């Protein structure tokens, strides 16, 4: 028996087209044609299809939305903070030496741009408040990089510190310090030198504090409250003066053409090879790190959360497959007479197995198509859905607030101050195909036991039922 005929029998039986109970047919009277009606078993099979479909929706949602969210978060971090790759350089390395390294790696295949950054800690003091800051002194080209521009929004003023007395600060830091564009800001940084001369005129010895005065020439936002509350950008020249060893770090920040591709490792290797020849005296391969290595704990946490969610959703899919197996078992019992008839006309045990595996394949296939379609549809419209929920809940809250006389608080599920203002959607069709294959395979596996049951019932036993 060919699998085509097995699928045909399975499909037609699953559809359950007969309109009348067979008992009524025993009278011998012709019965007028009626519409379709579901039998109890085909109703069960419809439930099994629905079960597979519904279990796939959250799985697809978690996969797509979590991938999108992780990519959204990681991109923001990478483009504004960690870069795609970092190569640590010795403190105090001259600009000429640094430029040699930058020139050497910028021409490498896969490298989009490279910048020298120096950063360190300090305290920013305004007229009314103070706050710890992370001072960043970067090549001006960093601010015109497309990736930086995409994720580092200018709230007020400029995005690049033009002069040595200009400072660009994060929006949350500006709020904390109660400063606005053009206000003065004092920076306190560690001064390890005995005779550090600054325009402030302070002359401290040892690790004494150094005071430097700036004017707020720009307020920017990276979209995350924790980053916006910390960053202050100064010119590279001021960085060289204020950020000194051991309270600072210097590195070459590299942006590549595709930071998510497996080729990131290859780009890292080529950078190591090139810098090893440029700086043979001090360069060591461990100084180069990719973005997943730099923020290992953060990305590990994202990955683990995603894996756990997928695991839980996977269990739901397994339960749906077990439900399908159970529905098919009922289907076998309810169609035992048909099995007997098929056997009497020559269907072998293998042929019966194929019919019921075919039923599992069809059921799982339809459920998978339904589930994936619905999951993809919801995923692609998740931001509208969230906006709709926010609007609906806020509208209800406004009515309740009006009735009770209390102020209404608008619902904001995606607060850009802490997370994302919208969820980026990233569909990996290879993963979707994997889920589809897994779902159909599970359905087929779940149908094996009922199929075996159908093929094992003896013909004698079945024929006595006739």
């Amino acid at each position, binding site marked *: 028996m060919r699998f085509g005929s097995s699928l045909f029998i399975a499909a037609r039986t699953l559809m359950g087209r007969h309109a009348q109970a067979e008992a009524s047919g025993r009278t011998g009277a012709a019965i007028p044609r009626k519409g379709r009606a579901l039998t109890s078993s085909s109703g069960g099979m419809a439930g099994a299809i629905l079960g597979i479909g519904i279990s796939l929706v959250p799985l697809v949602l978690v996969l797509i939305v979590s991938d999108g969210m992780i990519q959204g978060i990681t991109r923001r971090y990478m483009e504004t903070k960690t870069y795609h790759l970092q190569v640590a350089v010795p403190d105090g390395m001259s600009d000429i030496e640094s430029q040699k390294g930058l020139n050497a790696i910028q021409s490498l295949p896969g490298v989009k741009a490279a910048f020298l950054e120096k950063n360190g800690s300090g305290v920013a003091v305004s007229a009314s408040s103070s706050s710890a800051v992370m001072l960043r002194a970067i090549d001006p080209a960093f601010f015109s990089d497309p990736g930086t521009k995409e994720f580092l929004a200018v709230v007020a003023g400029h995005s690049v510190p033009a002069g040595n007395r200009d400072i660009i600060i994060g929006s949350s830091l500006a709020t904390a310090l109660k400063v606005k564009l053009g206000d003065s800001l004092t920076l306190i940084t560690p001064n390890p030198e005995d005779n550090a001369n600054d325009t402030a005129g302070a002359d401290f010895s040892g690790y004494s504090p150094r005071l430097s005065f700036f004017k707020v020439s720009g307020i920017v936002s990276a979209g995350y409250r924790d980053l916006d509350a910390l960053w202050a950008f100064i010119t590279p020249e001021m960085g060289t003066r204020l950020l000194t060893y051991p309270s600072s770090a210097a590195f070459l920040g590299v942006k590549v053409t595709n930071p998510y591709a497996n080729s990131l490792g290859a780009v890292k290797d080529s950078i190591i090879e090139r810098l090893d020849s440029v700086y043979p005296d001090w360069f060591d391969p461990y100084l180069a790190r990719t973005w997943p290595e730099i923020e290992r704990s953060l990305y590990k946490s994202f990955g683990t959360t995603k894996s756990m969610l997928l695991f839980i959703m996977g269990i739901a899919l397994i339960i749906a497959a077990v439900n399908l197996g159970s529905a098919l078992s009922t289907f076998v019992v309810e169609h035992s007479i048909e099995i007997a*008839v098929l056997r009497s006309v020559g269907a072998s045990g293998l042929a019966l197995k194929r019919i019921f595996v075919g039923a599992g394949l069809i059921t799982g296939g339809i459920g998978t198509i339904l589930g994936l379609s619905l999951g993809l549809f919801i995923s692609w419209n998740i931001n509208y859905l969230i906006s709709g929920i926010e609007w609906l809940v806020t509208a209800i809250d406004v009515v309740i607030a009006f009735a009770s006389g209390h102020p209404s608080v608008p619902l904001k599920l995606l607060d850009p101050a802490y997370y994302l203002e919208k969820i980026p959607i990233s569909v990996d069709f290879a993963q979707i195909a994997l889920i589809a294959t897994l779902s159909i395979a599970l359905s087929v596996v779940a149908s094996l036991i009922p199929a075996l049951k159908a093929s094992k019932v003896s013909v004698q036993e079945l024929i006595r039922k*006739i």
Partner: protein
Amino acid sequence: MNEQVGMPIVFCKDLVKNFESQAETLHVLMGIDFELAPGCSCSIMGSSGSGKSTLLSILGGLEHFDSGEVTVGKYELHKLAEKALPQFRSKVVGFVFQFHYLLKDFTAIENVALPAYMMGAPRKEAWAKAENLLEKVGMSDRMNHFPSELSGGERQRTAIARALINDPSVILADEPTGNLDTANAAAVEELMYGLPSLSGATVVLATHDPALAESADRRFVLFNGKLSAI
């Protein structure tokens, strides 16, 4: 099937079948001996529980037997392996039951075509053959109807067409008119006894109705586990 000239199509020698239960052993068939030539019709009469259906099930490879020799076509059922039985059932015998047992989710033409389609016949060929058979049994205008939309006589005629689809050598009919009114029963009887000339198949018909048994070429009665010619 290419049967050898002069050889019986059905051959039974000392066929014994008992049903064991905890309380007792029921001796249903106690040494059945008979043979049938190709293309003849035969009726087996007997009261309910006499073993007619059991005998037909044994001849059709649906029931095992305790001892004796049974040969149908070129298949020696007493030697045949279990896994060869489906092939035997699909190629050599065709069943017509008291109740039609058409697959309720399939149309008349699909019910008839399925045994051929399942055996590997191309879909177009199986459907064409089924259409031809349904025309022969007078169902040409009802072939796309579901069993629930057919009358009892129409269903039984569809079941007869289904039994013929794989060109069987032997048609085994168990009370084929048992559920039909007089008019339909007469039509099915005429059809059953016309099968040898229609398809060349041997018809073995079990019934407790003497009127139905009367028209067969050979008539037997099954009583107390023994088969006697009448």
